């Protein structure tokens, strides 16, 4: 198996002493890896460092073997990401927002852009300015921008935020399809534990900035009734330390 994400001894601390400490993790091609943890545990910080939005105090992140802070362009060219929340140019239309992204990658024509808009259920709104979009529509557009260039790695921070039930099921199935059929690697964080259970093949638990456990979903479900029980068990175990 080839490693798509290699995180080694990653430390990023804020002035308030929160952040992440000595986080190490590998994710292999075709996996859907879920990062779970309470608010403020360091999930978004991890993703920000992974995508070059932040520089770590120590440690390295490699995407496709390229250090994100040394070889940024090569590390990111096969990656699509939403970190914290999807951002858009509100004064531009959905299709113009997608074109701004698409230009960075070769061979993305208008039919691919339409295809992605269709996939994300936004084709009928493609010429509307994003400022009139609902939260769910903005989330869908964010996902469209993350996948328009057919990335081999998708990093998604709370991808289901703002989506209706239909949208959640759709995104879940799309990610599973991409991972199974196209061997796309997905790295996501979500507080919707049931959806993580249904989507991910492996999960990591981050508590107080430290990666406490990494398990495959099948192993977790052999020992626990649900991912939620496993998560609660890990939190209690950590509290006892």
């Amino acid at each position, binding site marked *: 198996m080839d490693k798509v994400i290699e995180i080694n001894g990653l430390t990023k601390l804020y002035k308030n002493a929160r952040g992440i400490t000595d986080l190490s993790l590998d994710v292999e091609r075709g996996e859907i890896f879920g990062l779970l943890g309470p608010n403020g545990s360091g999930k978004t910080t991890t993703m920000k460092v992974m*995508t070059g939005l932040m*520089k770590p105090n120590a440690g390295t992140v490699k995407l496709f073997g390229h250090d994100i802070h040394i070889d940024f362009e090569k590390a990111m060219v096969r*990656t699509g990401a939403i970190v914290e929340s999807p951002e*858009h*140019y509100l004064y531009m239309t959905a299709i113009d927002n997608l074109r701004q992204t698409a230009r960075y990658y070769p061979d993305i024509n208008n039919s691919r852009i339409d295809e992605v808009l269709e996939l994300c259920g936004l084709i009928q709104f493609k010429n509307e300015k994003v400022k009139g979009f609902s939260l769910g529509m903005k989330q869908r557009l964010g996902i469209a921008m993350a996948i328009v260039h057919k990335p081999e790695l998708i990093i998604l921070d709370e991808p289901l935020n703002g989506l209706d039930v239909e949208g959640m099921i759709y995104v879940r199935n799309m990610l599973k399809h991409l991972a199974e059929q196209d061997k796309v690697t997905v790295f996501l964080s979500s507080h919707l534990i049931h959806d993580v259970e249904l989507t991910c093949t492996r999960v990591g638990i981050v508590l107080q900035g430290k990666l406490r456990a990494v398990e495959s979903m099948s192993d977790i479900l052999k020992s626990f009734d649900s991912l939620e029980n496993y998560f609660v068990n890990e939190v209690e175990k950590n509290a006892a330390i």
Partner: protein
Amino acid sequence: MQPFKVAFVNEIERMLKRKKAVVVLVLAFATIIIQQLGVAGINMGLGLRAASSANFPLLSLELMCLLILPLFTTLVVIDTFSSEFNNNTIKISYLKPVTRFKLFIAKILAYVSFVGMILVVVLILSLIVGLIFNPTVMSLNDIIKILVAYIITIIPFTVLILFIAMMGQYIKSPVGLFFLCLLMYIVLTGVAIILPSLKNMVFIFNLNWYSIFTNTPISISRLINVTCQLLGYGAIFFAAAFHSFEKRE
């Protein structure tokens, strides 16, 4: 090269989509017409020649450099560059496969191109209007002088763009930044009345540095002084702005 080119094209597209840039171009157009009406009024009413066809483009450039272009450049750079930090849309660019250095250069170059675009529009318009309303023969020397004046005007405005880009890294509110720039300009202008030597030290008073070239004979010492001053300010603003742009999390 490709990511840089894309970043540049994206910047230009976003600038034009915001409409403010288009409004600025229209206002530049309107200014030339109003200015020409003023010149025509003086010609007819007082029987004086306010500007010949060769002078009119330089007269237009003077007005542009002293008032309109600094104001509009500040507005457009704040509106696009600074507001990206305010509303966090800078994250869109930061997540694309382009290094921050290339992204920063692409942004600055896009604003420089914008100023260049306005200058081209003003040059063409003022030439046409000047020739129609003040018909005198223009020598090759006049044409070269006008072209040089318009081309080199880009340099002090690049320094201004870098200055606003630097300020935008430290002041989050676009409105606050605009008023701070305005206040600084008013205060500096006021102080310069009391201390005229300030004009030799602050770049903002040399936005019309082309006049060094158009005045004959060319003052070499002033040319060296102002050129070094602009380069110095440019280097400082570039370093400060990029340092902050690169470190931003």
